[in-house]
């Protein structure tokens, strides 16, 4: 009966939270969910059949293109003034989203999370932040440029984003799937790199962080081998030639500040690396427990020329 009581408390909490206009930040304890989800099973997911059919208006209400002649029952979704360009895959409780919102004010940032409870928490958190900062003088501080939705990105990433739409992708503290048998369920695999390369624009970057050294090595291995001759699909050795991703040099722990001061591309890397090291919920937890953090960043190169063009 304990579980039922818990559920009851949860529902009560969320109802009152909604009634109060979501002004207070939600409490995590009412949104706990098991830390793992099976990416292969058919969840009750909602996703657009194609990116063109995605209705972003509930997520970014401040960025909808005003329709000069609104037609009721228009099936076409309302267009955004600019496309989403930053994706936090597996955003968890949304610490990174909230940290990025004022730091990347010109980008639309989307968090994708597979667990329903956690997604709801992030949604409530964002709406609370928006309510609290509605009066902010600058448009930068109003948290209108972040949103979160529930999705299984391993399956449905191309349903949300078109080719070369994203300029930044974050994979922060992904489920390590320790057993070799479960490696296919990892968010980085030789075959999934193809989808990440598809949605990232040339020059766009993937930021990865984990506290599991073996997983860090695995992710680096997959990204580095991807696209190399003999390294196709990633599992078959390192390969030779030029891959699709190149590793970006990073500031050491504590050096981010000097990078930020230098500004430019280096400053941006420093800023984002500091964000994923210190602002993610999981990053804070690892610091608390005295764990290590392994960061690596990869920049996407342009697609290779077709064999007939060489």
């Amino acid at each position, binding site marked *: 009966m304990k579980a039922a009581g818990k559920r009851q408390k949860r529902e009560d909490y969320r109802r009152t939270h909604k009634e109060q206009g979501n002004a207070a930040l939600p409490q995590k304890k009412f949104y706990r969910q098991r830390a793992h989800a099976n990416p292969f099973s*058919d969840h009750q997911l909602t996703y657009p059949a*194609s990116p063109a059919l995605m209705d972003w208006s509930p997520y970014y209400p401040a960025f909808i293109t005003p329709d000069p002649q609104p037609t009721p029952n228009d099936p076409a979704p309302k267009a955004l003034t600019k496309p989403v360009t930053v994706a936090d895959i597996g955003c968890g409780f949304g610490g990174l989203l909230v940290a990025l919102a004022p730091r990347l004010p010109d980008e639309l940032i989307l968090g994708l999370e597979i667990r329903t409870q956690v997604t709801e928490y992030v949604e409530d958190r964002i709406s609370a932040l928006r309510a609290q900062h509605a009066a902010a003088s600058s448009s930068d501080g109003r948290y209108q440029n972040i949103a979160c939705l529930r999705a299984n990105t391993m399956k*449905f990433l*191309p349903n949300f984003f078109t080719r070369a739409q994203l300029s930044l992708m974050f994979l922060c503290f992904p489920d390590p799937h320790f057993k070799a048998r479960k490696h296919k369920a990892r968010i980085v695999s030789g*075959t999934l790199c193809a989808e990440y390369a598809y949605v990232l624009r040339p020059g766009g970057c993937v930021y990865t962080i984990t506290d599991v050294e073996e997983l860090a090595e695995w992710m680096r291995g997959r990204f580095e081998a991807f696209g190399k001759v003999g390294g*196709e699909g990633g599992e078959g050795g390192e390969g030779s030639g030029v891959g699709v991703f190149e590793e970006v040099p990073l500031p050491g722990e504590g050096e981010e500040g000097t990078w930020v001061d230098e500004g430019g591309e280096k400053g941006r890397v420093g800023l984002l690396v500091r964000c994923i090291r210190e602002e993610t919920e999981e990053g804070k937890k690892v610091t608390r427990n005295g764990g290590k953090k392994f960061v690596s960043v990869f920049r996407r190169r342009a697609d290779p020329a*077709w*064999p007939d063009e060489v």
Partner: protein
Amino acid sequence: MPKRPCAIVLTPDDSTILCADKFGDVYSLPLMGRRYETKAVNGIDANGTNGTSDRNQKQKPFAPSATSLTVHTKRNRDALRQQQKLNETKAEKKALNFDHKLLLGHVSLLTDIACVLRASPSQKLRNYILTSDRDEHIRISRGIPQANVIEGYCLGHTEFITKLCVPPVYPHLLISGGGDDYLILWDWRAGRLLQQLDLKQLVATLRNTHLGAEVVSESSTTKDTETQVDSALRICVSNIQALEIEKQKVGHPGVEIIVTCEGVPALFTFTLGANAQLQFNATIHTESNVVDLTVLRNQNSVIYSMDNCHQSWSTDVSSDTASQSPRGLMGSPSYCTDSKTWKENQVLQANLVAATRECADSYSQISQAGVAHGKPLTDLLYGLESLRKRGSDNETEV
């Protein structure tokens, strides 16, 4: 193969097999591949000496990748302690002993694969791989050796896809079908949907006349567009084939597209013209449910096989007249280029009957032995419907 293959295709240069599997991966295998001696796997290497000690040196001792810094709960810590105690090398998975290479992968069950050559803007032939999966995606990748580059997606289906068909004369077009109500015609390189054709309507029309049981002339069934579509009716395309019609006169080559659905006793034929539009041509009624279909390119004909174990329109109710004539196993309509209609090919049919009679005799002996009955037989003949997501059923009911 590592997992159950779902579809295989040869590359256009006939040198390589592409194999799409249940795990979502596509492997390439040379057609004339070599099989390696299984070395070291059996513990004895090529020299005949016992290779186990050698192998142990090569393999790294098993070390759990989790550390006490990464797991925190009591149970996980216990599990980690157990693993650290158990420092034995785990049995490595047996390596495949033939040439194979992982080309690309979906995180979904793959259902079909096609390999197409298309001319580039500079008139050079380019190779593409098209893959379809259970999660409504059709992925367009470059061919070998750049299969890791995704060129685009054809997105528009709302259920699993079962079949891709690229007509050889019109390699820029793609026809796909599956568990939703539509056939879709694509300009696949642009990922552009050209035409959505309501197949369920055709099936429903046919089914209503079947259920009505009264004599309705064939012409009225095909023209009747205002049919009540049973909302519970689910269709599942089992095959799409393109048949190039031999040119009689100068002009664009005509292509007939023949479509079959699971548990439906009919072939649906469409004409694909140079205007890149599919036009419904005719419904060919068959004696019982169609199981499979192939085309005879030089004879303007198709051959289909039928299920004589189940009643028409049903995938689980067995037929009362199980011992039908072997005529009930196959059929072969031909396309008549003059009248632009389909009719039965008498000569081919007679040959088929003769050829299948022997098989049918042995088949009846097998079925008497009770090899497959009931559900196993249904799964064998109509396995595609099981791809439908159960979650989506609940959603429609709620």
